[in-house]
């Protein structure tokens, strides 16, 4: 498959945005600017990027607790994302959601999700909707290796298979569910093998190779759009940081981390572009600077934004009922 330079550059741009956004979030969390739980996507950028590069604007994705990368790759607005991490009124969820619940229905982003595995079922439902409405949209469902032991994985893949729903199930196999290594949480090596149970195609790719991800997912989205049903795509990757910020990662070795740092998907992409003359070092530097700027703007936007009003706490529970406020 031959990708245009434009496509390649746009993918690189996405990866870099994710990288920079996450590095910034990491720093802000450490400084105590961002509260709650933060799960970073550092090291896995190629998956969301390659996968979402196959999509149209009106396609859908479901995401996870580790969702920033997916949301950026699907075109999410980093100002609104950052403001949400800060819990501000201008955030994607008006400060009610936080990192684990960012969504943008208008861009087909059906939400990050704090419940491991919940996205599988929601994705199947979105697939049913597409199929029923007869459009050629497709649904990408992102999830981790750990979530493939959750009940929902099984139910959703089975339903999607028998109803031939246009869903691509994308497993980000980063080797761990918190401290539980894949070899301890399941007895298989390739999660793609589970496709057999639903008689759907299952493929395993190098999740740090954005082109490999693109190719596999592109194949799968094509099948989906042609009414040929779901595919399971496993992307082997690694998270550079702990499970959440603050995790001392005692369950893995420094050597293992080092090994994977050498396979850093962003650096790999940069090397590819330099070697293939798509970009020069200067271009890289100016791109990086430009994105740093964008991120800085997002942080400023978040910091300058107002906090949500207390009364807003009782809004949005229902479309038509506003709960009683606090009697104080």
């Amino acid at each position, binding site marked *: 498959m031959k990708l245009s330079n434009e496509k390649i550059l746009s993918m690189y741009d996405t990866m870099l945005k994710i990288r920079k956004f996450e590095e910034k979030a990491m720093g802000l969390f450490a400084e105590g600017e961002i509260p709650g739980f933060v799960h970073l996507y550092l090291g896995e950028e190629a998956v969301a990027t390659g996968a979402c590069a196959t999509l149209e604007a009106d396609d859908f994705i479901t995401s996870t607790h580790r969702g920033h990368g997916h949301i950026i790759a699907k075109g999410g607005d980093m100002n609104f994302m950052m403001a949400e991490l800060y819990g501000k009124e201008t955030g994607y969820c008006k400060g009610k959601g936080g990192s684990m619940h960012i969504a943008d229905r208008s861009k087909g982003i059906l939400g990050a999700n704090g419940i491991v595995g919940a996205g599988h*079922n929601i994705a199947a439902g979105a697939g049913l909707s597409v199929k029923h409405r007869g459009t050629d949209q497709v649904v990408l469902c992102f999830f981790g290796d750990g979530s493939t032991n959750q009940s929902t994985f099984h139910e959703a893949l089975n339903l999607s298979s028998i109803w031939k729903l246009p869903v691509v199930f994308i497993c980000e196999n980063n080797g761990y569910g918190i401290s539980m290594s894949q070899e301890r949480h399941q007895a298989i090596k390739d999660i793609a093998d589970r496709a057999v149970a639903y008689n759907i195609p299952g493929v395993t790719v190098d999740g740090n190779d954005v082109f490999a991800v693109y190719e596999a997912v592109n194949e799968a989205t094509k099948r989906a759009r042609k009414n040929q049903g779901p595919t399971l795509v496993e992307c082997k990757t690694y998270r550079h940081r702990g499970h959440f910020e603050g995790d001392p990662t005692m369950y893995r070795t420094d050597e293992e981390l080092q090994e994977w740092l050498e396979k850093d998907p962003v650096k790999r992409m940069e090397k590819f572009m330099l070697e293939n003359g798509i970009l020069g070092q200067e271009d890289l530097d100016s791109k990086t600077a430009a994105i740093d700027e964008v991120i800085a703007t997002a942080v400023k936007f978040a910091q300058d934004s107002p906090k949500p009003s207390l009364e807003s706490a009782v809004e949005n529970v229902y479309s038509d009922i506003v709960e009683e406020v606090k009697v104080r």
Partner: protein
Amino acid sequence: MRTMTYGEGIREGMRIRMMEDPNVIIFGEDVGQFGGCFGVTAGMYEEFSGERVRDTPISEGVIIGAAVGSAATGLKPIAELMFMDFSTVGMDQLVNQAAKMRYMFGGKIALPMVVRLPSGGGVRAAAQHSQSLESWFTHVPGLKVVYPSNAADAAGMMLTAIDDDNPVIFVEHKAIYAIKGEVPDVIEPIPFGKASVKKEGTDVTILTYGKQVYDALSAAETLAKDGIDAEVVDLRSLYPLDKEAISASLKKTGKIVLVSEEVKRGGYIGEIAAMIAEEFFFDLDAPIQRVGALNTPIPFSGELEDYVLPNDIDIVNTVKKLF
């Protein structure tokens, strides 16, 4: 006016909206050709095709989950679980997804979905097929919970449920599917949050919903013979709750007996009692009484089940304690 069973009323409500809107679809276990475990969807597969009346595998999680995902993306799904007891299998999708998505996303999503839950006992189906769990759902902000007691309400409230942009838990009592009632020729949506006074009275308020409306009415007849004039109020909608109707009746009678088939401890009538004790305390001239099921799982044997569930005699006896 025409006559219909409760089950037919539910079906009629679904049919009306399905004829109008191709994006209203039904799915659940054996809802297709089989017509549903209690026959509520009988004939709909033939009328609307298997694309719109879909049999699912035995996977309650993805039944609810698919309702969430499809409602979020343009459909108006009606999901049927065979028994309310099985909502335990799909609880996460109901409670952590359906109920919370709008709020978590800052109001920027609509979830027009209905989940039908056949509930209650009386059919010798034992502990895992007879529960009344409505109090769980009323405790979850983001869900609306309705529980019609007759064909006309079932039909009208089904329209409202389908039209609603929020997840609606539509509870049905499985022992009254065959009870007939009058239904208007033109079925109109019945707004949620409006109770219905089934019998006026001045001495005591019997507040209930679902199957217990029949028990309450029969209790009221018995009580009338003893000179006690009971008012019977059918809540119909558990959340939103018609506080005004409760307050109005209580102002009139000063005494209230709450009736539900739930296990008494932690039932929704406890919430209503607490609300009354908090907000309408000074309208009370007697302790608030509750009639619920005993605090046990539902036993299989007919005698035991009848003993455990509340009935009209229990209501009569409880009312009499107040006089």
